[in-house]
């Protein structure tokens, strides 16, 4: 079953610019040139129920704008959009009861009160029955291991604890669809891992469709089989993360360790030298030539150790960001 279907989605914003200087500020009082920013341009995709999909892209690429349109916070300028069978921008109550959105940088909890109070408020807002509420709360609290801070004022919680509370508050009505905007932003590595494990478990056990944006590549590698990469408002990649490497059609990284000094200039002929200090070198070599070149390197230089690696996924994705051609 399909949870989300998007066709030709477009969002334009109008804005003003101002040149540097007081004079231009005064000029702007009288006349302002209106410009249009195409935040999202003609995006199409569909997401099945129970899928876990990542939205990737640099800042300002249109990820959050797309997420806001999917959740009904923004009205699209053009295109068709169906989420759980509803048009999100109509903001029907039945629709709102079936999804949740967590924004890493915006809290939905009352800062002055314990998180338990905000969670209970959500129970009433989403009209969850007592028994179901108890069961869900117990499960979430145990999974995230936060029973000891449930009754502590939210503003006294650490960022990680607060994020876990945000997740509980968002999931208390068992949404079928969960949007996460930068859920691990600012968290330490251990907490990030914990949150990731939780999301993976939750997705698997409740078949909740999860869509997340993140800058942390680890989040995405661990969690999502599928990624949508957006750049400059366009969808530039839609597919499995394992194939992202193939999509970059590129090269591999060869790391060398030498027993003796090797002149860095002599390495340039074999591939792009990324780094070299005479005793260690990192080369980028086209995939087709890897075997031949490594053999040559081993023959010509006093190589102590050699490793061949895939390009780190971050780099591959950055190269995809630069693609302006839609898929």
């Amino acid at each position, binding site marked *: 079953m399909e949870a989300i279907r998007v066709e030709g989605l477009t*969002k334009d*914003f109008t804005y003003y610019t101002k040149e540097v200087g007081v004079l231009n500020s005064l000029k702007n009082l009288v006349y302002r040139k209106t410009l249009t920013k195409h935040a999202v341009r003609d995006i199409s995709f569909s997401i099945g129920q129970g899928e876990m999909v990542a939205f990737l892209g640099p800042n300002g690429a249109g990820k959050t704008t797309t997420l*806001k349109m999917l*959740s*009904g*916070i*923004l*009205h699209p*300028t053009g295109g068709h959009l169906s989420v759980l069978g509803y048009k999100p*921008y109509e*903001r029907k*109550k039945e629709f*709102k*009861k079936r*999804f*949740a*959105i967590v*924004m890493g940088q*915006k809290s*939905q909890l*009352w800062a*002055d*009160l314990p998180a338990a*109070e*905000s969670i*209970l*408020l*959500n129970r*009433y*807002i*989403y*009209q*969850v*029955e007592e028994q179901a509420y108890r069961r869900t709360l117990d499960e979430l609290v145990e999974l995230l291991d936060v029973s000891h801070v449930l009754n502590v*004022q939210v503003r006294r919680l650490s960022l990680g604890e607060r994020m876990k509370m945000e997740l509980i508050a968002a999931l208390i009505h068992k949404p079928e669809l969960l949007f996460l905007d930068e859920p691990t932003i600012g968290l330490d590595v251990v907490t990030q891992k914990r949150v990731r494990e939780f999301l993976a478990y939750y997705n698997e056990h409740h078949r909740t469709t999860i869509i997340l944006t993140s800058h942390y590549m680890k989040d995405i590698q661990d969690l999502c089989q599928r990624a949508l990469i957006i750049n400059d408002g366009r969808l530039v990649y839609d597919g499995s993360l394992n194939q992202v490497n193939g999509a970059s059609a590129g090269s591999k990284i060869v790391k060398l360790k030498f027993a003796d000094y090797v002149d860095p200039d002599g390495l340039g002929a074999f591939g792009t030298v990324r780094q070299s200090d005479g005793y260690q070198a990192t080369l980028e070599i086209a995939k087709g030539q890897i075997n031949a070149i490594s053999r040559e390197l081993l023959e010509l230089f006093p190589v102590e150790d050699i490793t061949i690696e895939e390009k780190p996924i971050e780099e591959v994705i950055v190269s995809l960001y630069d693609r302006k051609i839609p898929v």
Partner: protein
Amino acid sequence: MSFYMKYTRVFKLGVQASLEYRTDFIFSLVSAFFPIMIQYYIWTAVYGQSDNGEFFGYTYEEMILYTIMAAVVTKIVATNMDHVIASDIKNGSLNKHLVQPADYFGLKLFSLLGQKMFFFSVMLVILFAVLFYCSALYEIRIPAANLACFAGVLALSLVLNFLISYTIAAIAFWLAEISYFFEMTGLFVIILSGGVFPVEVFGKTANAVLSCLPFKYTIYFPANVLNGKLAINEVLEGMLMQAFWIAAMLLVSKAVWRIGLKKYLGLGG
């Protein structure tokens, strides 16, 4: 489960949140004292300079009592909600309400009522204490019926003031720089409402205009109910006007918000 339970819940949360700010509340009480002092000396000087025992229809004693009552009523009904709501709009906190199956207006109103509940009760006690002391001191007799109506009048004032704030806050949909705007409107609304002087001070014309506006029913009217200046039938009439303005402002605020939200959501405009 009843639909209204979320509102009672948010009301209770408001009560709890307000108890976290007890000290702040005490400071706000103390701060009310200074303008009262200033006005006390001004009016004492004004009345002292003149043989005329009455200004704008108020005797000296009535004027002082009005000043005190108005200051305390202002503390009760002034909500600061315009600020809170406007920053919700500006910083995007409104988003979380847009995606929840609950009404932003209802949640804000009930959380405000909850937050005011505790102070509302404390203020009532203070108000009556001051009132009995002053009325004995100045020998002003306040009809028992007025006292009985006062709590109701004050509650209506609070709701009316919330609606005015809620409507003004919608400006944030259009204006980018808002902090001084609300500083200005906040003070302006208090002055128009009679929080500083009784509205008679502004003269006949201004008074005629103010009579066609909701503001004076938030402070001027309740202060005068306690002052004993209004007869019981005038009090009831005033309460009807409060109810009328609450209904009117409800419609106005809904209309303004509908237009504002359209812009917020990026629907044309």
